[in-house]
């Protein structure tokens, strides 16, 4: 194959088509094929342990739009996360009674996400970016829980509105570039935003609006709790695990390289919002009575740490923030899956609907406790490494941000542990549905073991992971 990167996003798309006939078997086969292909690309392109940049160019069309893919370790890392979580999702929803479209949507989502991480032409970047919305809209709207339509529409409109700002910014960027240089191009590497003059802040903030909605950053976050709560478990996993990462990826790939000075000048505002998100997300999570909503709010806090690291533009901050993207995908993914398992069994999600599950479902209690600890940043598990490095980066740039971030770390325990206790330790109250909860079966345990061992690995020996991402981020260090 001469076009491995194109194959990378076409494979899951082909899988989506095949799913229409083969349903779950097609999904399983193609997500395994996809994961294998990602692994192949990752191994094939690495030389001396460092992933070299691969490019794939196509023809140039009108207005300088060109088909242009490229992969460095950041791209491949996030694509690997996509492929891995996609496989996990397929395995986790294996026994669901769902039509073929469900599986097709997941494969299509994986394809679009891969496209986002590969595209180096801003037009294609935008197209893939928006394409992710369609399968996710159906996943939430068709297979979600009771209030799914409202959540799906809210998710779509909210994130779409953010993307419109991004589109306007991109159009302004490209046309301003054309006006100044006389060249039409959407190529990320060729665009130079430093000559834009007065348009530059508009373009920058337009891009930020698009990314901030996806991340999501306070105050643009309110689509997230609804979408997560109503989405089916696997949908939440993909949403939290990969889709939220698009926002940070956009910052790393587009906003920071194009606007090195502006992004640094905006640090007090953006970093302040990120640091505030960590505390705000934690406080909101404390007030929730729905398990899934609580995890959703905790995502806002976690992504705040990623942002703090990335925005600090220090070596440790960027690398730690990026690793935190992966960490959050694994940890929150595992938590959402387990809430999904609970919901499949008992059709409830409230904290007070359960109790005493530690005796009834010890495996579930073990994995949930493990993932909870990872999510509150227990050293030795993955969350700590990312948080620590991100905060270390933030501290060297704007100490007050790190101070707020550490407060957020402290608060994390204040929402996660009471929730764990309410579900697993407290005695089952009247009206509790704990009796319906059976312990995890082999398939579910295998899925969670995989995730847990990865968490442990990153927590104990994060160095290979950091070394993998670091070269791709070196250029962003201030």
């Amino acid at each position, binding site marked *: 194959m001469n076009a491995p990167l194109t194959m990378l996003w076409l494979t899951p798309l082909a899988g989506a088509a095949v799913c229409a006939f083969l349903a779950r078997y097609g999904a399983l086969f193609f997500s395994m094929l996809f994961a294998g292909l990602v692994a192949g690309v990752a191994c094939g392109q690495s030389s001396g342990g460092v992933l070299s940049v691969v490019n794939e160019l196509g023809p140039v069309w009108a207005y300088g739009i060109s088909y242009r893919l490229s992969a460095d370790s950041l791209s491949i890392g996030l694509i690997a996360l996509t492929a891995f979580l996609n496989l996990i999702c397929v395995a986790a929803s294996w026994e669901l009674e769902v039509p073929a479209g469900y599986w097709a949507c997941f494969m299509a989502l994986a394809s679009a996400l891969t496209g986002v991480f590969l595209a180096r032409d801003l037009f294609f970047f935008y197209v893939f970016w928006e394409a992710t919305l369609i399968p996710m809209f159906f996943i939430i709207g068709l297979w979600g829980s009771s209030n799914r339509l409202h959540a799906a529409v809210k998710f779509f409109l909210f994130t779409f509105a953010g993307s419109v700002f991004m589109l306007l910014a991109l159009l302004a960027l490209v046309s301003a570039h054309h006006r100044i240089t006389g060249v039409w191009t959407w190529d990320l590497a060729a665009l130079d935003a430093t000559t834009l003059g007065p348009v530059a802040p508009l373009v920058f903030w337009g891009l930020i609006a698009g990314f901030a909605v996806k991340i999501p950053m306070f105050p643009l976050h309110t689509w997230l709790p609804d979408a997560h709560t109503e989405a089916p478990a696997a949908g939440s996993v993909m949403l939290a695990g990969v889709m939220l990462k698009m926002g940070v990826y956009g910052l790393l790939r587009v906003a920071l390289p194009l606007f090195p000075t502006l992004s640094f000048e905006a640090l007090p505002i953006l970093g302040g919002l990120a640091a505030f998100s960590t505390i*705000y997300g934690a*406080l909101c999570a404390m*007030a929730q009575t729905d398990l899934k909503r609580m995890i959703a709010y905790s995502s806002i806090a976690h992504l705040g740490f990623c942002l703090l690291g990335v925005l600090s533009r220090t070596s*440790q901050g960027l690398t730690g923030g990026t690793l935190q993207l992966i960490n959050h995908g694994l940890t929150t993914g595992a938590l959402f899956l387990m809430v999904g398992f609970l919901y499949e069994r008992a059709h409830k999600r409230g904290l007070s609907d359960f109790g005493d599950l530690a005796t009834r479902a010890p495996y579930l209690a073990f994995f949930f406790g493990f993932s909870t600890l990872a999510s509150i940043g227990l050293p030795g598990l993955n969350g700590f490494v990312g948080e*620590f490095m991100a905060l270390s980066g933030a501290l060297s740039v704007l100490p007050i941000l790190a101070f707020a971030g*550490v407060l957020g770390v*402290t608060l994390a*325990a204040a929402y996660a542990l009471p929730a764990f206790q309410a579900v697993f*330790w407290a005695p089952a109250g009247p009206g509790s549905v704990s009796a319906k909860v059976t312990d995890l079966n082999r398939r579910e345990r295998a899925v969670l073991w995989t995730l847990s061992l990865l968490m442990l690995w990153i927590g104990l020996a994060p160095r290979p992971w950091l070394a993998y991402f670091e070269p791709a981020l070196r250029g962003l260090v201030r």
Partner: protein
Amino acid sequence: MTAAQVPWAAWLLFAAPVAAILIGFFGFRRFKPEWTHLPILASCAVVTASAFWLAAHVYTGHSFDLNLFRFAEAGDWAVDFGLRVDGPGVAVLAMVSFVGSLIHLYAAGYMKGDPGFSRFFLVFHLFFLAMIGLLTANNFVQLYLFWELVGVASYLLVGYWFHKETARKAALKAFLTNRVGDFGLLLAVLLIVLQFKITHFHLLYLKAASGATFELLPVIGFLLVWAACAKSAQFPLYFWLPDAMEGPTPTSALMHAATMVTAGVFLLVRSWPLISLVEGLPHLIAWIGAVTALGAAVVAGTKKDLKRILAYSTVSHLGLMMLALGLGQIATALFHLIVHGFFKAALFLCAGNIAHALHQPTANVDDVGGLQKSMRLTYLSFLLAALSLAGVFPLGGFFSKDAILDAAWHHGGALAVMGMLVAAGSAFYIFRMLFLAFYGARPEQKQAPHAHEAEPILGVPVLFLALGAAAAGLLKEPVERFVLMGWRGMPSGLAGLDLVLNLPGEPVLPHLNMTVAVLGTAMAALGAFAAWRLTMSDPGFDWRWRGGAAEAVFESDFGWKTLVDAFVRGVSRLAGFTGRVLDKGGVDGAVEGSAGFVRAAGAAIARSAQGRINDYLWWMLAGTAILLLRVLR
């Protein structure tokens, strides 16, 4: 030195517990849960042997410190993990492994037949492992890792009987309070990375001793003290410890004697070369220690639950260690930590034996009295440990407490007076407990005819611990030597460490100041006499004085608990406001409101369109006419 030259014993410290936990978790827990303790007890034996071997190794001048692998790295930012086996670490390690192993043995008997036996032992051993890791860490990040692991293991153990609401609440309180302390430690570690670019203890000592000024050092030092206050249960963050006795008794014993609360003191010992450079900070530590020690000693004298008395006693003794630290007496603090480990473990296990004899999770002074006759071995152990705690010559507690009082006496002023008062208070509460539980059987107390001596697996470890508490005075010289070797005896020959030892403040003290020894013993005698007066010669007193304002004052720890509760309520109210009002009504309300606005506007416009084709045709005609006009003009 390379990794290959690290003695086997050092590897075994980690390999044995990890292997035991893995075997227990994947093997015994599934197939033979009631045997889970076997690999773990074997691991305890290995760890104790290794720890003693290492102690001997270090004592003969072979301490070492080396980086084993790079934990994390990005650009010029890096954190290495390694192993530091030096005097202070190994001195505490030897005590922790010995006392901890005896408690493990005791737990095998105490927890027998409990449905969660296997889970208990796995977490218990994890707790132990975490403390070993903490004591052998060679940098702050690694220390933080094990520090948190200690916290998690204690959380799981305090909440072990999670069906009890009190246990759940106590576990949460312990973890969250520690988390508040960890806020300090995490920030301190981050600031250390920022200020010094390294976290390695030894290199930090060198940098700190280089004479350069580090503007962040005061903040770092203060945060470290804050963290130690939470872990070592000092004012203002002490309040979680008395509640933490909701866990099974072996947990309390391990937590109070060996693995948890000593971590804070140890953290300060480890970072002493940094803290001592901060003007006024040692003084603050001394004051925190003195205030905590005195307050907790007073409150301990009013409690009814046996384990709660001991818990406040721990707070008080940790305060004494802090006092010694604050006065620059690191060796004295560590010595008291070790002696305290022995007598406190023995006392807790005695309380456990009493509860076990009554078939209750805990015992209260209302439940028992006059156990002297029915539980002779427990009585004997308790007596030895209690005398040691009260500082009676020539038991271990006398030497360690005397050294602290000596330091306070030399410092003079209020600290000296407070030290003496603590000595009296300690004697009072422990003798009160002794008299109430083992003597008499007052009319207010239930007779416990079925109380019987515990089986040997419960009795013997306690006796060993009590004997250890009695004889621990002999450890004074070795501990001092160990501490000196902590900073001077590194074989790598790093120069400049002697500078660190020139700590500001206190002069070197002569051994055994007779004035202090006599005065301290007199204070202890005074306390013991007061206890006798109020429990033996006036047996009903303890039941008479309760119920008034005085009890409320003591129950709320002089009002501090009330303040803390108010603070916690405030935070949860803030969270409720943020989540339910601000986010749902404010931020999300704006979003949903905008959708509602669009919908309402749409409905308003839709009213003009009735859906009849003819109407639309008219509109179309009008539009076309306007367009035509525009084109024709």
